[in-house]
Every structure is written in C-alpha cells, then in structure tokens.
C-alpha cells in the first residue's frame, strides 16, 4: 500500500471532507497561503479559496468563539490551533461555550466543530510550545477527544471528527508530521470509541496514546527479545474511551502499563489506570503502572527535555519489574 506522511494524511482528510460538504471551512492563523508553519495545509486555499480557508489575526479566543457561533448556525468549522499550548487561551470558548451548548439548550442547539491542534515535546521549543494538554479537554463533558497515533489514524479519525455533530478536539503529535504510514487510497473512516490492538500479546498490556503507541511498540520489541509477550493497545479516542478492549486485554495479561505524553499527575494515565482498577481489579497481578511526562514545565535544554517523556527503555524496565513482581508494595 502507498505510504504518506501524517501531514499529508491530514491534508487529504481535510480536502476530501471539504469537497464532500460545502459548509465546512478551515479557520486559523496562517492557514491559507502559508499552509500553517508546519505546511500541513498546503494546497487547500488554492482549491477552496480564502472564503473557506480563512487566515485570522492572532486572536485565538476570538476565532475559537467565532467558530462556535458559526457551528451553531449551520456551518462546520475546522479550527487550526497552531500549538496545543494555546489551548489555554481558548478554554472558555471551548469548554464553557462549545462543550455545553447542546446540553444547556436541552438538545436544541449544536456546535459541530473540530479543533485540530497538536502535542508533543522534544522539539526544543520551550515550555510554552511543548505541552500535551489533552487531559484538560477530556475532563470537560461535551467534548470528544481523538489522538491519532499514525498517518492512518490521523486521516480516519479526522474525517470522522468532521462528520461528528459534536465539538471534537484532535491532537496530532507535532513530532510525527513527517512520519509515514500505509494509508489506503480508498476512503475510510475510523469510528470513535474503538481501540486498536496494535500488537497481540499475552504477558502484559501496554496502553499508549498518540506517539506513545510507538513507544509501546518499541518496548514490546525489546520485551519480545527477552521472551515477554506484550499486547499493545491504542485507544485512538480518549473520549469516548473503549474500556471493553482494554479490559479484555488486561483480564488476559493481568498486567498493564499506561503510557501518555501529558503530565502524569491528574492526567490520562491516571484515568485509564483508575478505570482498569475499578473494572478489572480482581484480574490484576500487580498495580497498573502509569507513565506520563514528568510533572515539570518542559525544559528547553536538550539535556533535560529528553528525560521528561516516556521512552521504550523506560517502559520495558517497568514491564520487567511488573513481570517479576517487583512492584510489590506490601
């Protein structure tokens, strides 16, 4: 099958959906001629014009609010937020407005919009351009949250997001924009709330999100060489979260590590770990281990930045301990 980059996959998803639905439009900073600083959107303004690929001034709260109102009145905005870190600027419009509109109106109003943004450290971008803030959004009822782990997921999840009638936030890993994966020529969608078992295994379950799926897969390779069989699960969306697939795996392996690039405390790993415990406690041989980014602002210095995020070696090390019963804390 042909291979394309995650960036191309996003571009294709947008182009296809914009062709299909004339009410869709893209809005954000330098999305048109510049095609974003990551050049993800190149070519779209040429096809769809500046009326549907809309460059905004640098007023994130403003254009996010505008998108909410547009969505409520019959268009389907796809908001481009240049860095995930800027989500702090638009939380009110996203969480007080978009997320609650349908509920507060008793089901009469809807806000079908997509917020495309990114996450990921180790790009030497400093503390305000390196955060992975998806846990914040996932905490707010009314928002769906997708986390593609490859070009394939990026395309399929984005297409689903655009067709969804709810506000959806999709976090792309900015380090993966140039990573290639097999992506079919034919149209496909990836449903929300359906996890993907990336690799089957029997000894331990590794649940990873976004680029941490790759980290989990690499850890699984390391472990395989040592005779430990790891199952790797990619939830693909964290809201809704496919606990059935995760529970099934954990009940088989009895051990689990959850890996995510957001800060560990009060983050995604905690939620998944807590749910596994509630739902599969009696099947566990040891505690579910959480591996998130360190609870520190992301440092600029390469010497420090690289140690803030989970690595395959770190995952493998924890897996070995779990296998050996060394997590015993009695």
């Amino acid at each position: 099958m042909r291979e394309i980059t995650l960036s191309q996959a996003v571009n294709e998803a947008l182009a296809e959906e914009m062709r299909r639905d004339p009410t869709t439009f893209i809005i954000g900073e330098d999305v048109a001629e510049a095609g974003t600083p990551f050049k993800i959107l190149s070519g779209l303004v040429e096809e769809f014009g500046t009326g549907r690929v809309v460059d905004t001034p640098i007023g994130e709260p403003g254009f996010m609010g505008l998108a909410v109102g547009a969505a409520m009145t019959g268009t389907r905005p796809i908001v481009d937020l240049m860095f995930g870190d800027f989500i702090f600027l638009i939380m009110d419009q996203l969480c007080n407005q978009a997320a609650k509109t349908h509920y507060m109106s008793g089901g009469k109003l809807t806000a079908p919009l997509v917020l495309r943004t990114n996450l990921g450290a180790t790009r030497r971008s400093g503390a305000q351009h390196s955060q992975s803030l998806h846990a914040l959004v996932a905490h707010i009822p009314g928002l769906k949250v997708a986390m593609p782990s490859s070009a394939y997921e990026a395309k399929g999840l984005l297409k689903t997001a655009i067709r969804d009638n709810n506000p959806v936030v999709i976090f792309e890993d900015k380090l993966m924009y140039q990573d290639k994966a097999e992506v079919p020529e034919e149209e496909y969608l990836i449903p929300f709330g359906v996890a993907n078992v990336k690799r089957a295994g029997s000894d331990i379950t590794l649940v990873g999100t976004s680029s941490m799926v790759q980290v989990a897969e690499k850890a699984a390779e390391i472990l395989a060489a040592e005779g430990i069989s790891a199952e790797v699960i990619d939830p693909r969306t964290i809201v809704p979260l496919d606990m059935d697939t995760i529970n099934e795996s954990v009940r088989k392996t009895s051990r689990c590590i959850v890996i995510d690039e957001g800060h560990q405390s009060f983050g995604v790993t905690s939620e998944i770990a807590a749910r596994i415990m509630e739902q599969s406690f009696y099947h566990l041989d040891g505690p579910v281990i959480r591996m998130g980014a360190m609870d520190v602002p992301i440092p600029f210095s390469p010497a420090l930045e690289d140690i803030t995020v989970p690595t395959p070696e770190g995952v493998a090390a924890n897996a070995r301990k779990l296998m050996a019963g060394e997590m015993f804390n009695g």
Partner: protein
Amino acid sequence: MSDAKTNTEEYLRMYSQMVRIRTFEDNANQLYLSAKMPGLTHMYSGQEAVAVGICEALKKTDKITSTHRGHGHCVAKGANFKEMFCELLGKEEGYCRGKGGSMHIADQSNGNLGANAIVGGSMGIATGSAFTAKMLGKDDVTVCFFGDGATAQGILYEVMNMAALWNLPVIYACENNGYSEYTKTAEIAAGSITARAEAFGIEAFTVDGQDVLAVNELTEKLVARSRKGEGPFFIELMTYRYHGHHVGDINREYYRSKDEEKLWKTERDPITKFATWLTKEGIASDADLAAITAEISADAAAAVEYALAAKYPDISEVDQHVFVA
C-alpha cells in the same frame, strides 16, 4: 420622537412587546421574592426600548446573542411566556427543557442563540453567526447584545477586528445601563466606548436607549446596510436597569442613589414615553393601551400558573444531550 416603523400595527406591536417584557420581569421578580424560583435572575426592566427597538428591525431568521440579563432579548425576538417561565423554573417544557435556566435561555426557533453567563461569552458566537451568513450567502444579520461592563473583555476587540476585516453582517449592541454589577461605568471603562469600535474601522453610533423609535430607526438603517455587506456596526445604547444587578441586590445605596433611580423611572421610562407619544399622535387611546397591558398581564399570570404546575424533566434526562446522538 423620530419615525421608524410607520404603521399603527407596528407601533402597537412595539408597545406591546415592551409591556410584555416589563410584565415578564415583574412576574419573574415575584417568583423570586416568593421563593418559587430556583437561583437568581437579572431583571431587564428599564431597558425594554433597546431590545424591542432592535429586534423589531430584525426578521425571524436574523440571529441575536444575549446575556445574563436576557429575558428582554428573548421576549423581543419572539419567545412565548409559557416556555420562558417553564425554563426559569427548571421545567421540562422550558425552552431548554429546564437545563439552561435564566442565564442560558435560548430560543432557537426565533433565532435567539442564547443568553450567556460568561460576560462577553457570546461575542464570538455572534460574530460566527454572521460569518455563517456571509459564507452561505444568506442575508441574515446578527445582533450581539452586551453590557457596558462587557466592553472590558478582550474578546470583543478580537472579534470586532475580524468582523471589520471581513465585513461581517453583525451589529454590536452595547447596552450602557451605567453599571457593571455594583460599579459605575466610568470606573471600569477608560476613554470612549464608541471610539474603541471606530478604531477598528467600525462605524459607531450612540442612541437614547429609552426611545424605542430612535433605536428602531437607527437599527433599521444599519440592518439594511448590513444586508448589503456594509457591516459591521456598533451601537451604544444609553439606558438604565431599574432593579438591582440581580433580584437579590436590594440595598443599592452604596453604589447608586435612590434619587437617580427615581429620575430614570419617572422621567425616562421607555414605556411611559412611548405611551405618551402614541396617544399624542392619536395612534392609540389610553384605553387601548390599558387593554393591551391587561391582556398581557392575564397571559403572564396564566403562563406562570402553568409553569408552576408543570413537571420537572425526568431524572433520566440528566445525561442526555451531553453529546448529540
């Protein structure tokens, strides 16, 4: 007074809409005072000419966004008493099935995109609604209502900038009632409010918000120009709220005097002023107007009674509408 609407029916409709707002609020206040209403609410009384003067210049598919002080906008844009009182009381037959309440009342069917409990929270929404109209080639205009206090929120300037750059059909309607909660406007707004809009290249107007015809005439013009792509516009409407900031704000003398309140109520009441004009012009007699008021009072009383007896949403609704199915 100037001429805006020009036939009797339209004049009387404006009068009656103002009375409906006042009556709605008097009943809502009573519900609060008699502890029959959950929570608090913000009365629109005194500002009726603003909502009515503006909304009478709009058609049904035109949109408005509203505020925490939103009952007036809701009535003016065409809402019914029954669904409104049901909403205020958290009942299933409310506009939002009781899930929104006073601060989130919306009336999708008449183009009211909803009140908002975040001061400034609907400025983006209104601008986006105008964006939709432009993108889909509809001639709908959106009016964004907000208070003087809300002009301190930065998002206003962000969206005015975009609306001006893209010529969006939106009218920013700033109801300057002199107060932002318990603080005088002068203490929270430096410089000039209209000059701020003008600095973004937006034509701005100031109008007497107690004069329904003046408000209507100006709005008719700006709506027509907006439909032709000449928007956005900004209007500052000088007005006054009769009650406290919310129904529980009873002792107000530390921030505004009783004399001031009295002056506005007796000398500048928008309903009385318009009534005087209507009778003077021979458009309606005192008796005609009294009949209108009586009918509206009866309607309101019936709606209140209905709403009090109506049922709450079933508890199974609690997790419905989080997501669109």
